[in-house]
Every structure is written in C-alpha cells, then in structure tokens.
C-alpha cells in the first residue's frame, strides 16, 4: 500500500474544500461545546443535588412525656411510606449526645440542665423518589396533625429546588438537542456530499489505474473525521479541566464525542455509498 499517495490525497481533499472544512469545523465546535456544556452543567447540578439530598432529613419532634404507643404509631406511619428510606428514633439522651459530639465547644451548657433539654424525635430520610412529587411537604403536614407531635421541620428545600432546576434543564437541553440534530444532520450531509462531488473523479481513476477504491474511501472518511477529531480533542481538554475543577466526571462528554464520531462515520459511509 502506497501510504504516501493517500496522505497526499488526504491533504489535497482538505485543501481543495477548505472553506467547507472550516464551516464544518465551526459546526462541530458549536455543537460539541454547547452540548458538552449542557451535559457538564447537568452533571454538576446532579452532583450538588446528591450532596444536598444526602445531607437532608426531616425531624419530627414529640411533646415531652408523649405516649409511647402514639410515638410508635407515628414511627410506623413513617416507615410504611413508600418514599421513606430510613426512620430513626432519637431519644432525649441520644439527642444530647449528638449535640455534644456536634458542638463540643458548647457541651458545658448542657450541665445547666438536670436531664436532656432536647425533645425525643424521629429522624426521617427520604428516598430520591420523594423529590419529584411534592411528597415531603405533604408528609410534613400529615405528621404535624398527630397530637403527640410538637413540631416537624426539614431541610429538603434546597434539594427540591435543585431537583426542579435539573428537571427543567433536562427538558430544555433535550428539546434543543433534537432541534439541533434536525438541522445538523442535513447540513453536515450536504457539506460532505459537496466535498465528495469534487473528488468523485478520483475514485473512478484510482480503480481504472488498477488500485482498490477502498483505501481512497478510507482516506475520505478520515478527511471528513479530522475536523471533528480536532474539535473533540479541544473539547476534551477544556471539559476535563472543568470537570476536575468542579469535581464532576468527564465520561458523559466522552460518550457525546463518541456519539458525534459515530454519526460522522455513518454520514461518511452514506455519502460514499450514494
């Protein structure tokens, strides 16, 4: 195989259609940067959501000297909820110990009280399913109605807001992605076809001079992929650094790049086929 010939033809194809290649480069750059940014912003919000969600809980405080049967009933109600992941009863003593371990500087304050100044309470952790259906506030209202319950509090508000932002982003990006694809596919194909038309004679000549067309086809596919590979490399570097900064994984961007490369291959073969 005469590699030098095909390398020269590769550069010749790119030189001859340089304005098309520049335009393709711009299309690839815009599409990869926009969608990588979308994926990474989604990943970052997901990460924030996970962190916030895992640190969130609901507290159900009981009146002093509550009837234990009523406390058990409240606990049972919580445990039977399909969106509750974990329920833990925090006794007055345990609440005091927790306070000591959390705020050691103020533990001396507790000596002022004869017993534990903290009320007995239930700590409830929800599963992620609870975020989507407005269940947490509804459940909070439900538990507040028990006569033994003095107060119900939770810190899921931030997680709920982040969940809503993520859901909206997902919808917006999905619509944008589909719209973009509807424009991207025919635009990309028409540029590739016009490049191929300029080189068509080359494919016939190579065969008439007794060489296989396959190697030239591979050269064409490679020429078509080069702008995308360049933009992919740039995107990878930028978003890998961004990922390290924000502590989010890079693999969704890698999947996106592979998806675009896969599309590119299909388009190239389609152009050659026709």
């Amino acid at each position: 195989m005469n590699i030098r010939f095909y390398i020269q033809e590769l550069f010749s194809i790119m030189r001859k259609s340089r304005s098309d290649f520049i335009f393709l480069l711009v299309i690839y750059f815009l599409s990869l940067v926009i969608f990588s940014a979308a994926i990474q912003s989604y990943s970052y919000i997901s990460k924030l959501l996970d962190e916030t969600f895992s640190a969130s809980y609901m507290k159900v405080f009981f009146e002093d000297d509550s009837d234990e049967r009523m406390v058990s009933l409240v606990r049972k109600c919580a445990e039977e909820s399909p969106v509750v992941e974990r329920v833990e009863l925090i006794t007055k003593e345990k609440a005091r110990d927790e306070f000591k371990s959390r705020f050691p500087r103020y533990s001396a304050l507790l000596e002022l009280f004869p017993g534990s100044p903290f009320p007995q309470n239930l700590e409830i952790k929800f599963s992620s399913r609870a975020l989507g259906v407005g269940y947490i506030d509804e459940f909070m209202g439900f538990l507040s109605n028990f006569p033994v319950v003095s107060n119900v509090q939770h810190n899921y508000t931030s997680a709920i807001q982040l969940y809503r932002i993520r859901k909206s982003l997902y919808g917006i990006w999905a619509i944008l992605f589909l719209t973009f694809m509807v424009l991207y596919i025919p635009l990309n194909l028409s540029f590739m076809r016009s490049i191929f038309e300029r080189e068509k004679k080359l494919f016939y000549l190579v065969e008439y001079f007794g060489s296989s067309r396959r190697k030239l086809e591979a050269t064409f596919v490679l020429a078509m992929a080069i702008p995308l590979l360049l933009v992919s490399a740039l995107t990878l570097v930028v978003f890998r650094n961004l990922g390290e900064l924000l502590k989010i994984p890079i693999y969704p961007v890698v999947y996106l790049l592979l998806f675009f490369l896969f599309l590119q291959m299909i388009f190239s073969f389609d152009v050659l086929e026709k």
Partner: protein
Amino acid sequence: MADKIEFENVSVRFNTRWLALDNVSFSIKKGDFVFLVGPTGAGKTTVLRLIYGDILPDQGEVRIDGHPLSKISKRKLLEIRTKMGIVFQDLMLLDDRSVFENLAFPLRLRGDEDIMRKVVSTLKDINLTHKSNDIVSSLSRGEQQRLALARAMINEPEVLLADEPFSNLHKSDIDWLIDKMNKYNELGLTVVLSTHNFEVITRVPKARVLKIEEGRIILEH
C-alpha cells in the same frame, strides 16, 4: 498478460430494453491495432468498457488472457487493469490540477520512485513542457487529449484503449495522436480505439477494423 482479448457471444442490455451489444464475438491479439467504427450509440464504448471490466456482459464472456472477467475476483480485475492504459471519451483529467500532477497521478498511485524523470520525459514527448504547471482546464482540447494519452501511457501498459480520441480535434492534433499511437503499436502495444472518423483508419494500413452497428459487428476487415 493481456496477450489476447476475446469476446465470445457477448450481449449487453441496458435498462432491460436497449440491447447495446448483440451476440458479438471477436478476438484481439497482442500487437494488434484495432479500430472500432460505427455511428454514435452503435456499441463501441460498450465494447471498450467490457474490455476493462467496467461492465459485465449479460450473456457470453469476455476473456483477457483466458481469464473470464465475469468470474475473476475484483483484485484480479484490478491487476489486469494495471496493464491497460485508458483514454476516456470525456478524458477524465483532474481539471483543477496541473499538467504535471495529472501525469504524476498514476505513478504516485503505484508508488513509483522515479516520478520526476518519467513525467519530465513524457512532457517533452507530448510537447507540453512549457505548460507543466498550467491547470488542465486552461489547456486546449488538443492539449488535453495529448495529456490524456500520455497519462494512459505513463505506466507503460500492454494495451491502450481509447474512446473517441479524435472528437472535436483539429487535423494537426489528430495527426499527432495517430502518429503517436502508431509508434506505440510498432513497439508492441496493442491498441483498441473507437472512432466515427473513417479518415483516420487509412492512416494505419495494418489496422483491423470492426464495424459495429446497432450492437452487432457488421464488418470485420
């Protein structure tokens, strides 16, 4: 290689209705100079395309050195083509490249190490040295035809196939081409060319003439 080209009861049908060749049989031996003559649409180009395996017959067989083209592999066909030089009716020159680049193309494709010497020598041979860097589209029809012939010959083929090489040419260009082909033939090259210019036939007394009309050989001389 390419010592003998044989057509045995060859028929070719285009678009199921148009019979381009109808039961054609003939053979061409090494060193023959063959004119395929006949009106437009008679089947001359079809014969040439069958020889270089661009199309296959619907019936019958075309054999090059005994190899039936319908039965050999694509690889073998490409190998056979390396021994053929083809001048296409539409020339198939790379219009956006220079004269030099067009001549160098088959040599580069083959990985030839001596491209510069061969191209320079060929340019001198076809009197186009002064136009070496000119873009093909800027050449006259006669110059383009000379270039197409030179490109077909640069790999030193054993068979030259030329499809209507004299169309739209001045007499001087036709004279130059026919003299050149005669010289190649005297050196042992097999030449098969199609033309509807009957005048050129008289310039090659030893040539065989196959007259084709409506897909049939009506006269062999």
